[in-house]
C-alpha cells in the first residue's frame, strides 16, 4: 500500500478512536492498528513483534513520527498524562485523495474503533496479546491453550485475565466476520 493511502487510513483510525472516547496515545493506536491489520485484513503492511507491553510495531512508530513531521497528526499534552495523538486539519486533504481506499475499509475502521475505543492500555495489552497468540498459535488453538500461551508471554497477567482476554478476542473475531465477507 502506498504511503498516502496508509496515512489516510491511519489518520481516519485516529479520528474514529477519539470519537469513541479513546485517549489515543501510542499504545491505543498500536493495538488498534494490529486489530485493523491482522483481524480486519486491512493491508497496512506493518510488522508486529511481541514487545514489553504486547504486540508492537516499530514500523508503525516510525510512521507516526513521519506523520507528525508531515503535519498530518499532532500531539496534545494533558499533564500529568502521556501525549495523545490527534489528526490535523491537513489530514482531511490527504484523506480526500484516497476516498476509494477509505470507502473500502471505513466500516472495518469503525468496527475496531467501537470495539477498542473505550478500553485502557492494560486491557488493550491483554486483548492484543490474545489476538497475537490466536493468529500465531505455538501450541493448540483452544481457549485453554491460548490462555496458557498468553500467560507464558506475559507472566504478570493472571490465568483468569488471560482467559477473559482470549474469550474477548473470540467474541470480537466472531462479530468481525460480518465485515470480512
Amino acid at each position: 500500500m502506498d504511503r498516502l493511502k496508509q496515512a489516510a487510513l491511519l489518520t481516519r483510525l485516529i479520528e474514529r478512536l477519539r470519537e469513541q472516547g479513546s485517549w489515543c496515545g501510542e499504545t491505543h493506536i498500536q493495538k488498534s492498528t494490529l486489530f485493523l491489520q491482522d483481524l480486519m485484513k486491512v493491508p497496512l503492511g506493518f510488522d508486529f513483534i511481541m514487545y514489553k507491553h504486547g504486540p508492537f510495531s516499530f514500523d508503525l512508530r516510525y510512521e507516526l513520527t513521519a506523520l507528525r513531521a508531515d503535519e498530518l497528526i499532532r500531539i496534545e499534552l494533558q499533564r500529568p498524562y502521556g501525549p495523545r495523538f490527534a489528526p490535523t486539519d491537513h489530514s482531511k486533504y490527504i484523506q480526500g485523495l484516497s476516498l476509494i481506499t477509505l470507502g473500502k475499509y471505513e466500516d472495518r475502521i469503525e468496527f475496531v474503533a467501537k470495539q477498542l475505543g473505550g478500553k485502557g492500555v492494560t486491557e488493550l495489552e491483554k486483548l492484543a496479546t490474545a489476538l497475537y497468540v490466536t493468529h500465531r498459535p505455538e501450541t493448540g488453538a483452544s481457549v485453554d491453550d491460548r490462555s496458557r500461551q498468553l500467560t507464558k508471554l506475559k507472566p504478570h497477567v493472571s490465568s483468569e485475565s488471560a482467559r477473559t482476554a482470549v474469550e474477548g478476542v473470540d467474541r470480537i473475531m466472531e462479530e468481525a466476520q460480518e465485515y470480512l465477507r
Partner: protein
Amino acid sequence: MCYKSNSGHVNARRILGREHFKLIYEKNPQDVEINPEAGKAVFEALGSEFGADHFRRDRYRQESGLPDFRVRMRDGQLVPSLGISETLNNVPDVSVDYVFAERSMLDRAQQWLTGRRADIIQPKKEETDNG
C-alpha cells in the same frame, strides 16, 4: 587493459573525477503540504524522463518516537517524561528528502523540472483501488 567493465568502475570514476551528483530537489514545507511524498514524485518523474540511473534519492525520516522515559521527581514519584515536559513533546521531527542528478544531466533536468514541478508533485486522486 580496460577497467570499464569492472563492477564499481562508474562509482570509482565519479569519486576520482569529482563527478558527484548535484542537488536538484529538496523537500520544502509548501510542497509537503501538497504531497508529503513530493520527493518521490520528483524522483520518479525525472527518472522516467531522463533515465533512472541519472538520479539518486536520499530520504531520511527520523525513526525514534517521542522521548518517553521515567523521571524521578523530588518527592520520589516516577512520572513519564512526556507528561511533565512540554519541550519534549515539541521536539521537531527530522524528515528530509533530497533528489540528486548526475552533473552531465543537471542543467537539462533542472530546466525540464522548472515549470513542471507543481504538476509533478500534485498527488493524483484515487481512481481505481490498487491498495
